[in-house]
Structures are given as C-alpha cells and as structure tokens.
C-alpha cells in the first residue's frame, strides 16, 4: 500500500467515524430534571465532550445507586496479581516490553498494599533477581535486559526494590554513585531532566522520577536540584494544577502529582499558589460520578484517585484543608472500579482491569480511608508524612498506610530511607 492510500484509509476508519459536528440544542430544563434530578444545568450544547460524559454517567450512576455497602474484593483481586508472578506473560504483553520494572512495581505494590504477607520471600527474591538481570551493575535501570537506562524504568525499579525488605542484601547492591552520576547527566538547562539520553521527553514526570529516586537513595545534592524549583513553579497554570512543561501546558492530574510531590521532596511547597491548587484539585471531583477526572471537562478515571487524591493528601499533610471528598471518592472506587466478573481494578465501567489501574486505584482507596500529617510539624521531610486510618461508617478496606509522595507503603519508605541515611555518595 502506498503512503497516500494508507493515509486515506486511516482517515476513513479512525477520523471520520469519530468526528462529530456540534448540534446546537438547548436541553429542556424540565426533561433534564426528570432524568437527573441532581443536575441543575439549564443550557447545554451537545458536543463530543457532552456525549462522552453522558455515556460515562449512564454506566456509573446505576452502579452507584445500588443499595448495599460496597466492599473491596481483595481476595478476588489477588488472583489477578498473583498470575503474572506465577506464570509467563502472554505475547500481547510485549507492549510492556520496555516497561518491565513497572509491572514488578504495580503488581508487588498492589499486593503489599492489600496485605504485606501477600508478597512472599520468593516474590521478593525474584523481584531482586529480575532487577539484577536488567542491570547487573545495580543501576541505572532500563525497561528490560540490554535496554538503555531510563528515568521512569529506574524509578519503577527502585520502587520495586523498596518493597523487598533488603532480602539477600539486595539494597546493598544498588549502585548509588552510578545512578547519581547518570541523573546529573540527564539534567537540562531549564531545570528539568531528560528521561533518556539522547532522545527523551523533559517534563514534570521526569523531574519527579529523578527526585523520588534520589531522595529514597539519599543522593540529593544542591547540584542535582539546581533550577528544579523554578522549572516546577513555572508549570503551574492559571487553573491551579500543573502541566507537563513550563509556560502554560494544560493542567493535568498526572503532571500535577509529579510537580507537587517533587516540591514536597524539595521542601518548597510554599513556592506555589496552594489556594489555586486546592481549587483545581477540588474541581476534579464530579457530583454525579463521585470520582476524579484528570483535567477540566474530561472524564473520571480511577487512576486519578491516586494522582489527584495523593496531591490532595500532600496538601492536607502540609496543614491545609483536604480539598477532596474522600468518602465519595471511596464510593466511586468500590462501586465503579471493580466487578464480580473480572478480578483487578479499572479506569471506569466498560474498561478492562490492568496492572496500572489496579495499583493506582488501590493507592487512591488507601488515601480515601486515611488522614495525613507530618510526624514532626517543625521538620518536614518527605519520608515523614504519617498516614492514619480514618474510622469509617462502612467496613474499612484494611489497606496498609501508604506514602502519598512515593506511592509506596509508608513503613517501607521509612525502612528504606533509614537504611541509606548514614551512607554517602
């Protein structure tokens, strides 16, 4: 097939089918009231945005109005998570070939968040072994054996090893000085980090990965952090959230989490407009679905329970009002992100569960059932955020306390950072 034909075919199948002209209808307020009594919208125009929203509402609202106490089906989800650790993965998982440490982190972290005993010593040994296959020298890590070192791969690898309780002295084997030198080499002029050299993106995600790695390993230096706060501050937009790159990239849940967690690590939370950030986080939650969206006028997605929920938790730990309604978020997660038919957690009704969503939905659930504060109000360090379970009217999901900055069990973060506390680069 020559180029032009393939392009036309693509346009036919992918573009024309989806492109819709806006229909200018003013929705009758009476009709609207009958169908959705809570919505007070009087005028609306039908566009792609409203059609997508209506579809989501039609799937979520019936699940939310079921008259029973929703519970986390932990044992069922465990099946979904044990599978990849006990079996080889099917060929279609080759799509994750460049992100193998992510699978280890998402799966191990989900298991441990539900029950620390679900990560057996055998799992821990095999995680440590997998990472030494990926990087026999102890880091930096790529997406798999022989792949180039990557900031996200290294982030996921370090997070995975944090979960392994120094089994077989695996923490000793991490090559901190090599990781430090490599992170320095990825720094860009504008205060960001390139995810991979020579070609890789420079955004708040890269900054967060670099700072998370460095603070966990106790290799943060002034040189490493030079210009980083300015980079992050310039990513806050007029809406209050953060974009991926400085100077008005659109505010987005994932990038906002990355920027805010980075500022917490750098002890620079006061450099931004916290008030605008609170407004933006709070506007992510919708009255009808009760879950969180990642951007203005976009749909709810279970993964933002963590990206936005953890941002809200960091705001709370810093002494402000938490801008999110945790109880409602919990309801969205338990009613809309799991089913009895398939194990694992998902984005929204109609989507399939995957490891990414399972991890971030579970972390979001843990956040929705906890309160956050610094252990010592005078001394703010990234690893000293306490998360305490809230007493709930319904049954608690019994998840362990997690760190909103690192997306890891709080106890593991504490253990890991104290291990490296006295070590120099």
């Amino acid at each position: 097939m020559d180029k032009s034909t393939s392009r036309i075919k693509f346009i036919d199948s992918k573009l024309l089918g989806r492109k819709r002209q806006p229909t200018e209808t003013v929705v009758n307020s009476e009709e609207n009231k009958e169908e959705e009594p809570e919505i007070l919208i009087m005028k609306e125009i039908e566009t792609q945005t409203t059609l997508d929203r209506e579809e989501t509402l039609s799937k979520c609202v019936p699940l939310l109005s079921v008259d029973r106490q929703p519970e986390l089906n932990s044992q069922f989800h465990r099946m979904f998570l044990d599978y990849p650790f006990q079996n080889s993965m099917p060929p279609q998982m080759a799509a994750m070939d460049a992100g193998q440490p992510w699978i280890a982190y998402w799966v191990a972290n989900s298991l441990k968040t539900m029950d620390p005993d679900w990560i057996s010593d055998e799992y821990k040994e095999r995680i440590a072994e997998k990472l030494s296959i990926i990087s026999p020298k102890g880091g930096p890590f790529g997406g798999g054996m022989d792949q180039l070192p990557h900031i996200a791969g290294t982030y996921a690898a370090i997070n995975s090893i944090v979960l392994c309780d120094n089994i077989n002295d695996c923490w000793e084997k991490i090559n901190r000085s090599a990781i430090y030198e490599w992170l320095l080499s990825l720094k860009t002029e504008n205060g960001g980090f390139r995810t991979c050299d020579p070609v890789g993106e420079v955004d708040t995600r890269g900054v967060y990965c670099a700072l998370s790695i460095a603070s966990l390993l106790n290799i943060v230096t002034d040189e490493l952090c030079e210009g980083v706060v300015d980079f992050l501050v310039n990513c806050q937009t007029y809406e209050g959230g953060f974009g991926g790159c400085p100077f008005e990239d659109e505010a987005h849940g994932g990038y906002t989490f990355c920027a805010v967690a980075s500022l917490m690590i750098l002890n620079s939370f006061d450099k931004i407009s916290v008030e605008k950030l609170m407004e933006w986080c709070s506007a992510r939650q919708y009255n009808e679905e009760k879950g969180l969206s990642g951007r203005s006028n976009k749909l709810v997605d279970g993964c933002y329970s963590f990206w936005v929920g953890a941002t809200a938790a960091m705001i709370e730990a810093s002494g402000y009002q938490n801008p999110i309604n945790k109880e409602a978020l919990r309801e969205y997660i338990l009613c809309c992100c799991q089913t009895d038919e398939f194990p694992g957690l998902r984005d929204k009704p109609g989507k399939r569960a995957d490891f990414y969503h399972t991890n971030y939905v579970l972390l979001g659930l843990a956040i929705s059932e906890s309160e956050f504060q610094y252990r010592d109000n005078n001394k703010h360090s990234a690893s000293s955020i306490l998360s305490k379970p809230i007493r709930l009217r319904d049954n608690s999901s019994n998840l362990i306390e997690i760190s909103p900055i690192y997306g890891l069990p709080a106890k593991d973060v504490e253990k890991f950072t104290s291990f490296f506390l006295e070590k120099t680069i």
Partner: protein
Amino acid sequence: MSDFNVEDYSDVTLSPLTSDVENELCKIMYTEEYKQLMGIAFTLMKQDEFSDRAFQLTSKIIDIAPAFYTIWNYRYKILDDKVTSCRENDDARINLLNDELDWLDEVTLNNPKNYQIWSYRQSLLTNLHPSPSIKRELPILQLMIDDDSKNYHVWSYRKWCIIFFKITDFNKELEYTNSLIDSDIYNNSAWNHRMFIFKSINQSEKLDQSIINGEVDYIKGKIETVPQNISPWNYLRGFLHNFCHETTAVSDLIPFAEKFVNIEEIQNQQLPDIESSYALEFLAEAFSLDDSTKQRAVECYKGLATKYDPIRENLWNHKIELLK
C-alpha cells in the same frame, strides 16, 4: 528507501531477549517474529552498526513496538550518523530529514498516545535539521487534533513549536482555537492554548486595552452560550488575573455573573435553581474582595456547599473559614 527484508540480516546472530535464569519474573512469551527482530536489533546495537539495514530494521520494530524507546534512540543515532556523513551537502541532508519527517507522520497517525514520537521529533528539529519549518509541522498536528481534540502530547508539541520557531504572528493561532472552541465549547485544551497565546503576545508587546476588552467579550459570549462550563470561567479568572487590574475587573463583572444566578434569593437562603455554579463561584470570589460584601460571599459558598456543588463542600467551607 527499500523495504525490510529479513534475508539482509542472515549473518547476524540473535541476541537473547530473556536471561537463562529459571523462573525469571514477568517473563514475556515473545512471538517468533518479535524474538527474531529484537534479537537482530540488540546485536546490531551492541556492534554500533549504523547501516541502512539497521535503519530499516528500526522502522519495522517501531511498527510493532512503538513504545520501545531504546530503538527510537538507536534510530536517532543512525540518523545522526547519516546526517554527519552528508554534512557537506545541504540538499541531501534536508531530503534525508524530510523523508524522516514523512515517515514519522505515518507512525504518528497510527500511535496517537505514544510519547517517544514527540521527543524524537523535537530532537530531530533541534539538533539535526538545518532548516526546520513550522509549515511542515502543522498539517500532522491538525490531523491529530481532528482525531482527538484533547490529545495532550499534540497540544504540548504545538506549543513547543510556537516557542521553538519564534512565532510572533499569533492571529492564525487564535483563529485555530476559535474553530476548535466552535466545534466543542468544552474543549479545555483549546481554552488553555488561548491563554498560552495571550501570554506569548504579552511577552513581546504589552497587550493593548482594546485587545483585552475584545477577549473579555469573547469569553462572555461563550459563557452566555453555555453558562455551566468550567473552561471559560477558569479562563476568565486567569485572564483577568494575568492581564487586568484584577480586583477592579472582577468587580466590574459582577452584573454579568448575576445574569446566571438569582443572587437575591441566594442571599435569603432560598436556594433557587441557577444556570451556573461557576457563576456563583465567581460571585463568591468577587464578593470576598471587599469587606462590605464578605457576608454575601459566605452565603454564596454556603449555597455551593449545600445545593449547587456539594461534593466540593471541603473547599467551600475552607473559603468560608478564610473569610472569618
């Protein structure tokens, strides 16, 4: 460029994709084709082979594994090498790089959510291309936005282009956001891009008052069309904050916002139906600015917390606390 032919690689020993470790965690059962292609690629990479056949192999692999960033980096190094070898001949270099951009457009159309494409493109334009042009960039961006008008990477890349190519005529860019807002008034990415444009204009020359007034009228028109739409309200507040004397400008817009809310009934705690919770939020903020109207602001926030946007109760209560 000739097509991929596996026989061109018959001399290459395949690198293994998995270790000998028994029971390796999360081992993927690769297809035979995948094992063969990646196996060849890893061997060639280890030998630093920057040949045509290596280049063709990277196309083939990106086709089946577009997120495989190591191959993108390998391709970039080969391209860099090719560019260096024809550094004396500008035409040859430009042809080579434009062919590469054509190929990249095809890959982009098939992989709308991919990260690597955009950073690869940026590196190519920044480091290799002797005469990059924004005209060459816009059509593919247009196609991608036609497919998904909120594609984050595409908007971010478009913004990058405006900065990289030092664009100073922003009218076309404004018209572009107009057309997108016309087809979906809720498209927050388009609204956000507008703010970027005005900030850029303001950096090169201070925005004059007629432009500011014109833009405020534009926003008001869009709000009148659909009052319950967070995008233009957020944008309005941001625009006033960035380019106007904020407190005066906000106060001036109280009568406008009151068109969507029966403010007297709200003050009397009657909680009538309203056309826009965002108008009420705007009014609450406007009333907060002046000591004499602070109690009015409290009533607005109470209305939001109890009836109009109750899920955000924590925020509204926090705002009430600030007013005490």
